[in-house]
Structure formats: C-alpha cells, structure tokens
C-alpha cells in the first residue's frame, strides 16, 4: 500500500495496528525482511508523503525536520550545517551514501538501533518529537522516546512526523566522534558531547551521549555533572571519561569488540570529544 496522503497512511495504521508497518527508507526494514527477521502482513509505504520531507527554521531558532527527510539531505543542508552542526558532523557516519540516499530521519529514530547515530544526536540536542495518529497528535520529549533495544514510545497507531531541534545556547560547543572498523560500518563505540560555558569559561552544563554502549542511546548524566563548574583540563576530561566508561555505559560486546575494549574506546573518545567541544564552546 502506498497512500498519497498522511491521513490515508494514518487511517491504514489505525485499522491494522501492529499487523502493519510503515515503510520509510526501507534500509533497516527490508534487510530484516530479507533475512526473515521481520515479517509484516502489511507495509504502508510512506514515500509518497512529500509533505513530510522538509527542513525549516522558525522565528525562535528551532529547526523543524520532517520525519521523511532523507539522511543524504540532512548531511548536505546548509541550515543543518549552520544551526545543528552536531547533526551535520555526525551524518557522514550514518551508513554509506547509497544508504543515506534512501534512509530517513524518522526511520532511524523509530528503528531505535543502539548503534545508530541519529538517536544519539537527537538525545544530545534535546529534540522534541511530534507523533500523529488518525485522530490527534502529541509531542514527546526525546528523554521519553527511547525505551530500550529497538523500542520507542510510539504507539501502534502512531507515526513519527516531525523532529524539532532547539537552538544551541551561546558559548556552546559540540563534538561527535565514533570508531568503526571501516567508514560507514556500524561503530564499535561513539559519542556526542555538548558543553556550555559560563562567562568565565567554566562548564555550566554538559551532556555526553553514547552509541553502541547499552540498549539505546546512553546518557551519561553523572559524568556530565562532574564537569559542571570545571575549567577544561586533561585531568577533568579523564575523570569524566572514566566515570562514563566504567559506571554509566553498559556495552554488550560483539565479535569485533569485547565490552572491555568498548569501555577503553569510551575513555579515549570521551577525552577527545570533550577537548573538541570545550574548544568549540570558547570560540
């Protein structure tokens, strides 16, 4: 089924509930179906809903991103580059160009793969997500959206339609770093770091969010708290990195990386990301 309108798509989803799945870019869903990992009675192809493919900035400086915006467009968009540099920096790490030509923003968030970049970026930036059903709509703050491995807060009749990114406060710097075996492969570990400085150059608030380090994007709150009031130094970065790596993340390991190695990566990459984020914040 390939409805031409959002109303049509939502009506089908209400009617079929869990028996139906939205088909966005198909870059996660179809491989899963080819492997017989996913079986779905009905696919609602939403690629005709051009009205959900947009990038706009409103008077408050919020960036509005349609759920069906292709990843390739996010990567190249000048508004994203200027106003959501963290998202811009992370985009080339999302799979390969051929995948980003099809894959969508909403598809990646709804899929909620703990190793995916976009959920980490959305969480780090404090996104607000708009979900719609045939009858009504609601806003979900990103802290409530991810509910564990491949699980979100979306109900069976809901579609994610929009992602809103608030503007970064002044004196804020952000950095995204990940480590993978080959460019475009899923990362063994990665993180987004955001730091806001006060007038005197000390950290006012910080956020550290990790990928492939748990059953969803992992928000290392204690490590972020440790940074508050601190001026940048190698010791401060190392302390925050150790806390996050040893206490807050919960990496599952894979054939390519043991949990110990992932913790090691977390320590090293956190130090680098913090250095970059502090430097960018003080520019």
């Amino acid at each position, binding site marked *: 089924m390939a409805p031409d309108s959002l109303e049509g798509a939502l009506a089908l989803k209400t009617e079929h509930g869990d028996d139906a799945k939205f088909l966005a870019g*198909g870059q996660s869903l*179809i491989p899963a179906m*080819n*492997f017989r990992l996913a079986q779905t009675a009905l696919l609602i192809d939403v690629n005709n809903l051009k009205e959900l493919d947009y990038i706009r900035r409103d008077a408050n400086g919020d960036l509005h991103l349609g759920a069906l915006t292709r990843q390739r467009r996010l990567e190249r968009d000048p508004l994203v580059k200027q106003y959501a540099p963290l998202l811009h920096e992370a985009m080339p790490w999302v799979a*390969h*160009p*051929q995948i980003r030509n*099809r894959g969508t923003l909403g598809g990646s968030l709804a899929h909620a793969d703990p190793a995916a970049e976009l959920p980490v970026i959305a969480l780090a930036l404090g996104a607000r997500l708009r979900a719609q059903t045939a009858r009504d709509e609601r806003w979900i703050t990103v802290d409530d959206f991810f509910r564990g491995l491949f699980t979100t807060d979306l109900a069976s009749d809901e579609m994610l339609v929009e992602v809103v990114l608030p503007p970064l406060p002044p004196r804020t710097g952000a950095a995204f770093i990940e480590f993978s075996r080959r*460019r475009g492969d899923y990362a063994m570990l990665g993180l987004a770091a955001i730091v806001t400085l006060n007038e005197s150059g000390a950290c006012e608030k910080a956020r550290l969010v990790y990928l492939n380090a748990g059953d969803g994007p992992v928000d290392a709150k204690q490590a972020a708290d440790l940074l508050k009031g601190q001026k940048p130094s190698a010791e401060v970065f190392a302390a925050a990195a150790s806390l996050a790596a040893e206490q807050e993340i919960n990496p599952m390991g894979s054939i390519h990386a043991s949990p110990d190695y992932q913790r090691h990566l977390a320590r090293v990459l956190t130090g680098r990301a913090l250095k970059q984020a502090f430097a960018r914040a003080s520019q």
Partner: protein
Amino acid sequence: MSELHPIKVIINGNTYERQVEARLLLSDFLRHELGLSGTHVGCEHGVCGACTILFDGAAVRSCIMFAVQADGHELATVESLAKNQNELHPLQQAFHEAHGLQCGFCTPGFLMTLVPFLQENPSPTEAEIREAISGNLCRCTGYQHIVDAVKLAAEKMKSTVVSSQ
C-alpha cells in the same frame, strides 16, 4: 500476498510496464523479470553494494527496495553505460586500463556508485574516492586499482568535456 500491482518504470531510457508482486525485490525484478542481469546480487541485505543502481539519478541499493516502489521513477543500471559493444563509458574504460576489476562481480555496483560521484565531484582527491566507495565491497582487487581507475577516469572525463566544448 500474491496480488499483482501494475507498475510503469523507465529503465535506461526504455519504458517497462509490468505486473509485480508486492514483495518482489527491485534487484530480482531487474534481473529475473527484465533480464537486466548486469546488476549483481551479493548479500541481499544492503551491505556489499553489488546491486547499486541509479534511482532518479541517485545511487541506491536495489536489493533493499521493492519493485513496486519504482513505479513512476527513472532508473539506470550498468547496461546504460556503454554506448555500444565497442565503445565503453570512460569510467568502464578506465577500470579496464587500470585493472580495476578481476572477477568483475562487484564492478557494476562500483560503476553505478561512481557515475553520480564523478558528476558531482569531477576532480576528487584520493580520500574522497575512498570515502565514495566505502559502501562497496570487492574481494579481489584490494581497492588500490579501483582508486587508480577512478583517478584515471576523472582525468579522461575532464579532457573529453574540454575537447567537446
């Protein structure tokens, strides 16, 4: 499940109208229904890049799309590149000259990835070339000759543009 859907697709400039099952993969449609077997299928889950084609001008994996999704769109496969039996596309010629292929299984995917890349980026650096082909696996060449072939193709394509002006 076995319900058929009519589709109309332009592929390599020719219009095809067919009835397809909803779950038929685009790669299988091209190969089995249309006999366009230049598009290769390696992994069928989006990893190897052998099945790359152009979909409205953009490189995509045909193994993780359905044929019905191509309805109303314009596609190009590797068969579109050479003008005729004797005259290869400059990129194909460069692959030939620089030994950019051995068994050739991966080659159609590399070519269809690189055609739009070179259009957008006619003078790529080595790093940009490696980035561009990061989504394509080759088990024979070790990639170095492919990178050489792309550099050679970029040279050739620039000089043909200049000389035709």
